């Protein structure tokens, strides 16, 4: 392997390691990984009869939006502003970090959030 390929491989591995995150849900949340994007875009607000309560994590919000919602933060904010004005719905609230998200998701039926570190025994919906 040439030095250049080795460097590229290392960069790719490093970027993958940095981008790691976990979407977690309350034990009552049973959604498919591909539905996470729709939930955070406000298109999917119910799973069966249960209302979903998505929450953001300010510590890793940018990486989550790029990786899962596939949108930059400005466009995401703009989209929610229009949605809120049009449909009367509010964007997901923002929590301060992994600990707060973990605690909220564990305690709140329907809650779904994401963390940057391995959440252990939490209900993991998607690893990104």
């Amino acid at each position, binding site marked *: 392997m040439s030095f250049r390929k080795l460097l590229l491989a290392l960069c790719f591995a490093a970027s993958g390691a940095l981008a790691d995150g976990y979407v977690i849900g309350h034990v009552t949340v049973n959604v498919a990984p591909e539905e996470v994007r729709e939930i955070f875009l406000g298109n999917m607000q*119910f799973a069966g009869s249960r209302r979903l309560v998505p929450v953001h994590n300010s510590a890793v919000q940018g990486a989550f939006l790029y990786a899962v919602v596939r949108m930059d933060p400005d466009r995401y904010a703009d989209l929610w502003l229009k949605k*809120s*004005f049009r*449909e009367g719905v*509010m964007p997901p609230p923002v929590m301060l970090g992994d600990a707060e998200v973990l605690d909220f998701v564990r305690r*709140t*039926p329907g809650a779904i959030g994401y963390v940057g570190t391995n959440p252990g025994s939490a209900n993991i919906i998607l690893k990104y």
Partner: protein
Amino acid sequence: MRFMNGLFLAGLVMATPALADDAARIRELERKLERSMQLIDELSAKVQRLEQGAAAQAQAPAVPAAAEQQARVEALERQVDQLGTGLSRRSLEEAAQLRGFADVGFGYSGENNPAFGRGRKGFGVGNVDLYLTPRLGDRIRTLIELTFEIEDGRTEADLERVQLGYAFNDAATAWLGRFHTPYGYWNTATHHGAQLQTSILRPRFLDFEEHTGVLPAHTIGAWLAGSAPTAPGRLGYDLYLGNSPRIDVTPADGGKLRLQPEGGTDHAPLYGFNAWLEPRAVEGLRLGVHGLRGTVEDNATPASHRTRLGFYGGHAVFADGRWEVMAEYFRFQNRDLWGGTGTHRSWAGYLQAGYRIGLATPYLRLENAQLSQADNYFATQRFGRSYRRAALGLRYDLDPRAALKAELIGTDQDDVGTANDRYGEARFQYSIRF
């Protein structure tokens, strides 16, 4: 002897208080002793109970006591969790933030014709729009919007939207109240939020009823809306039913559509639909069709005109964060229910394209409305005249919440008392959201 008697008497007088003090002290000591005895009795009983308990505990196996303690701890944890959950949900749900928009600016209009007179020039205040979206539970939805704007030198407050809704699921949310009539795209996407829209002006025929609009931008009634994922993409719909507006021909500046916020003595319904698809294959694309029917009467004397308003059309929107391309088309087939002149056909549409380069978005819009003057619905409205318009503008985002816009507009209009009227406008706007 007399001296001795005196001394005795004096000693007796002095000793009397001392004797009284001793008696009181003895009574106090007796009370204390009594209390001490009671305390000793109570302590003895307590020691006895503890000894009996310890003996029983020694006889019983240790596991149930530990299990009981564990159960108590778990019950306490559950209670604390429930309290925490309740408080978190309440704080999320009851947070009703006041949001809104405001805009100011200046402009120059070269308009000068018999129908509209001379155009306005100078500085102006647009509107201040406030809206609230309090969530009162899992399924109850509310949206309240209040707008303040200057009209003919007076500040007018207008209850733009009062919608009370219930979300059954993602595919069905029912609303009652006053809402933005969900036809096409523009009317529900931006409405009074000037900062939301790329351009300064709305397409003229899609403007509000109190300005230059010729369509019912608001409806008072019931609205069912929702969307669902399907194989080709997300499919959405709107179905609505409400009061038809009336045309008020009495104002000095000509006829305008007026809503019927309290219904009418002879209620005429208005109903319509809007259906759209966001294809999976092209991110940011939305395609839709819409239709509306209603019966609109004016208040002309001696006899009012009555028209069956009917239009259908479609829209296509592409917005990927860099490009914003929008097109809408409306085809009218209005039937005269008063004079028996038949059905009159008209059409209106626009195409707008903008491209974001950093913080700047240059844009261009072309509008065309060919509105039949044999149709009472258009002929009795001040702005129900045919026109063509081109707008070229530049938007610059100072901040995600504040934008500067400059727009040059050229309008070519018919049916204004001269064969053809052309004029230019220049506008500047500073708009914010909060």
